[in-house]
């Protein structure tokens, strides 16, 4: 009853071809090398690196993380080495592997977005940009850019003008109408949309009556948020025609398949890496087994086959 050949796993995100739909989520996989001992990076569809700003960023003061039921809060605040150091110190390592490299771009101003985009577009071995207008842990830019369709569109346009790379825009779920934002960035030229980034949350230490996070609030990620992520992906795929990348609480192949069935063209694995460094590999294998068991020859045959 087995298929003669392994199911085909390749998917297209517009111009960007991936050998399978499983990538890592920005900020949860370092610059790739942190997990290279655990994971065969060659097997990943893509590696999305930690958000990059023009200059290095210190990040927020600790404590920065706290566990919650079925998830975690983080307020890392985009600590990163800056785009130049990334290209010099981290990109050469990533170029050695057969996984698309997607750089997550962050700016406090339109101008910073422009400059970071320009620098990354000139670098060898960056396959696409993911524009982060959804970070809840920074004072300027971040989620503010992502909450207003007009601003989101303008950031998208700014980035598009500076690059010929595919541009993925990553949206925040902390909005009333995710579809409005998604359509705005689509109209502004986005090649794909990633959703979701973290939900904003907080928690309190009863002993000190202080927040567990020094930054007070942080981003909630992990399986706790999966139902919200899946709902937003479904809302958006119905109303845009560019590909959508599903993110949020994906721990297993089953979770990933839910997003694909609902219509995501690919998925990103975030917090799961922390809990299980093999998560991406297990998810790729799990999807393959599911396809084989259901005699589906090509993953594209299940994308968007939701029966509402």
């Amino acid at each position, binding site marked *: 009853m087995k298929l003669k050949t392994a199911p085909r796993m390749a998917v297209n995100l517009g111009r960007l071809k991936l050998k399978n739909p499983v990538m890592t989520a920005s*900020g*949860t*996989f*370092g610059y790739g090398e*942190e*997990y*290279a*001992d*655990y*994971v*065969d990076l060659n097997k990943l569809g893509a590696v999305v690196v*930690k958000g990059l700003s023009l200059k290095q960023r*210190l*990040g927020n*003061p*600790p*404590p*920065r*993380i*706290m*566990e*919650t*039921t*079925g*998830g*975690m809060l*983080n307020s*890392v605040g985009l*600590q990163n080495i800056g785009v130049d150091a990334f290209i010099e110190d981290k990109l050469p390592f990533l170029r050695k592997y057969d996984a698309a490299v997607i750089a997550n771009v962050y700016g406090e101003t339109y101008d910073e977005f422009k400059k970071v985009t320009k620098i990354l577009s000139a670098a060898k071995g960056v396959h696409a940009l993911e524009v982060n207008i959804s970070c809840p842990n920074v004072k300027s830019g971040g989620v503010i850019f992502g909450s207003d369709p007009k601003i989101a569109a303008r950031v998208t346009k700014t980035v598009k003008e500076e690059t010929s790379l595919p541009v993925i825009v990553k949206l925040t779920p902390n909005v009333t109408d995710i579809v409005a934002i998604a359509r705005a960035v689509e109209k502004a030229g986005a090649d794909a949309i990633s959703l979701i980034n973290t939900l904003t949350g907080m928690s309190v230490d009863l002993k000190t009556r202080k927040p567990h996070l020094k930054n007070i609030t942080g981003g909630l990620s*992990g*399986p706790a948020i999966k139902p919200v992520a899946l709902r937003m992906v479904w809302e958006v795929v119905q109303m845009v025609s560019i590909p959508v990348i599903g993110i949020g609480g994906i*721990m297993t192949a089953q979770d990933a398949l839910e997003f694909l069935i609902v219509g995501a063209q690919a998925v990103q694995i975030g*917090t799961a*890496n*922390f*809990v*299980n*460094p*093999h998560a991406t590999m297990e998810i790729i294998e799990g999807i393959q087994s599911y396809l084989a068991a259901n005699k589906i020859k090509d993953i594209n045959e299940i994308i968007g086959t939701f029966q509402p």
Partner: protein
Amino acid sequence: MAKNIYIGKILKNEEVQKDCFLMKIKIAVSFETPLPGQFVMIRIAGLNDPFLSRPISIYSFSRKNNFCLIELLYRVVGKGTQIMAGLIEGSQVEINGPLGNGFEIQSVKKNVVFIAGGIGIAPLSLLIENLCRRFPSSLMTLYFGAQRASAVIGLNKLQKMCRLVNICTDDGSLGEKNLVTRVFQKDIKKFLPEDTSIYACGPKEMLVALGKIFSKNEFDCQVSLEERMACGTGACMGCAVAIKDKKGALVYQRVCADGPVFYLRDIIWE
């Protein structure tokens, strides 16, 4: 692709002192020999609540013919350690490790001083054992402070390995009734910075007090820090600690990947 997530089997999980457990775990022979100061991330296979793995130092390690044994010494302080304490023999745990950088032991000097506060003895025990073996001629002195007598763990073994063991407790139930940092400070004149290596692990207040003591002299003190962790492998940037960089500016380093051992003088306390 060298690292693995190991399934460990619990051989023993005993309450050695009130709220303090010793867990003995059998693990595959491919487990890397840990350096003193390294830790593991441990979780209960398949459980989503608690969600994150917990970092615990390696207290002891031995390599057998076709398996390894690791021991973890841990104090029950919250949900995760509570659940660990409830695990019975034969239960399985997921172990990621050994992680982090151990203590710097290339240039151990004539005098070696260990300063432990409470459960901070855990990583220091493996270090002491290791240094005893490698530098049998060094003079090992341990200052060990705890809340009460019952929190002084492994004293017999420690006394065998160290030339001198100074115990103190908050309530005077064992040794001197004093803070370990004060006891050490009284003795500090016995040591010279150029021929003394110092290693410390304990609660933050203890490390801050040590920081003050060493701010006025040339001693090199390595300390093992604790911070809440998500990944344990350097990817999440969650376990930040403020450190002075070469120019003296504040940067955030990762306890898991850049530590957990730091030079005390580099740490910037809030």
